């Protein structure tokens, strides 16, 4: 970057940091002013976090949640991208399947909980299934859109160089659609992280979602509830930042508006 960008770099961190500090201050004083005995102040939450760390439950719960997300989101990626590419590639098939997808898509994964429990029983598999459902549709839709938005000059150039249809899909259509697919994946990961917490509240006895509900049920430990909530937020942020790094890869970032 040039010299002009330097002060911006400082401001890029300074202002968000100030806003975060302000948030915690506001929280602190609101607890004091309102005189609540139930809702914890930031320092109590910090104590709660340390307690969870000492008891070694926090890392275990984070690990369980991440493992479930990785499995469900991974399966949604492995199945969703090829399906989306195929549907984008054959618009005629897409037209046939589209109504069904449009009906299934707006159904919250939470609505599937009873169904998931019938299929998989109360346990890990049901939670993973719910995460899969939440992540699957955004990935499929992004892949379909990605393929149908590939400029025709790229397909034509590929055909001109003698590529067979499968090569065309792998060497032209997929890389051309990848920026949009990545956006779909990021969206899907966000949803997966939302769903894992909810799924863990009903289906299993580990993970951050379970930590939230268990802290409340076993002795109304709201300091631990909020501590778990904070961890959920921070990990969600880290996952999103990780995906944003992916969007900066040179063979991908051409596809975004500010991508040059």
């Amino acid at each position, binding site marked *: 970057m040039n010299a002009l960008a330097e002060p911006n770099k400082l401001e890029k961190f300074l202002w968000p940091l100030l806003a975060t500090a302000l948030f915690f201050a506001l929280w602190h004083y609101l607890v004091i002013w309102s005189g609540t005995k139930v809702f914890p102040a930031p320092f109590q939450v910090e104590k709660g976090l340390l307690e969870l760390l000492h008891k070694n439950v926090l890392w275990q719960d984070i690990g369980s949640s991440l493992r479930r997300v990785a499995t469900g989101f991974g399966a949604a990626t492995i199945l969703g991208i090829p399906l989306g590419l195929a549907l984008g590639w054959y618009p005629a098939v897409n037209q046939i399947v589209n109504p069904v997808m449009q009906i299934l898509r707006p159904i919250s994964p939470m609505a599937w909980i009873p169904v998931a429990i019938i299929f998989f029983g109360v346990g890990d598999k049901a939670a993973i299934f719910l995460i899969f459902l939440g992540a699957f549709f955004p990935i499929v839709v992004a892949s379909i859109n990605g393929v149908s938005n590939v*400029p025709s*000059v*790229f397909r*034509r*150039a590929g*055909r*001109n*160089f*003698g590529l067979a249809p499968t*090569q065309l899909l792998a*060497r*032209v259509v997929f*890389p*051309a659609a*990848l920026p949009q697919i990545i956006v779909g994946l990021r969206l899907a990961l966000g949803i997966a992280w939302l769903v894992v917490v909810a799924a863990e509240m009903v289906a299993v006895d580990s993970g951050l979602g379970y930590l939230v509900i268990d802290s409340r049920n076993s002795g109304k430990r709201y300091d631990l509830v909020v501590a778990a909530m904070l961890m959920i937020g921070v990990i969600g942020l880290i996952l999103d930042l990780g995906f944003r790094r992916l969007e900066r890869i*040179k*063979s*991908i970032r*051409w*596809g975004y508006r500010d*991508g*040059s």
Partner: protein
Amino acid sequence: MSSAQAANPAFAEGAKLRVQNLNLVFTRDEKSIPVLRNISLDVSEGEFVCVVGPSGCGKSTLLNTLGGFLTPTSGSVRIDGEIVRGPDPRRIFVFQERGVFPWLTVEGNIGFGLFKLNVSERQQRVAHYINMVGLQGFEEAYPSQLSGGMKQRLEVARALAVNPDTLYLDEPFGSLDSITRHVMRGELLRIWEAERKTIVFVTHDIDEAVQLADRVVVLSDRPAAIQKIVHIDIAHPRDISSPRYLELRDGILQQIGLAHKI
């Protein structure tokens, strides 16, 4: 043979590219729109032919039909006597620089069509064409990091790398600024003289056509028919202020129905 064909001065024996009685009709909303009308044209091996005509007349459609991307309604396109039925790596179509693949580096783009070669042959070929179009030092760069002129060179290099016998260029310099266009014309002529490809070049720029072509095909308004074929009998490098140049250019301007005063 019809009388129109017999009268066509472009009709000669042993052509590389032979277009015979080509008609193309688009059907849109159940209406037939004739786009190309009875076009017959021979292009000999190594010849540089420019196609000009009024805006929207069907120049690009003609080029797309020659390239095998569109199927003629009647008539035929033959290359070396063989009917063209679809796109083929022996004949590469060059778009405005929009055709380069933004997810591949310069090297990746030039090597794109070389998947049948082994690695060392491919590297050699890629390096050769990077040098030819003057993109040394940009091997690892992505198209978004290149200027318009460099992207256009990259696309030409990608086309040349697969060693086609014919190049179809569809207003390749249309989106470049006038200085870059001037430079690019010189580059294209240099490359053409080195590689002696048969070139069909569509442009809306009459000066460009007269500077580059052996022959300029002037198309009429839609449905496009060949209105005139002008031989550019000036040796390269061409003096673009010589009386003969101006005479030929003004002749084409008149053919299209433009006055040369603004």
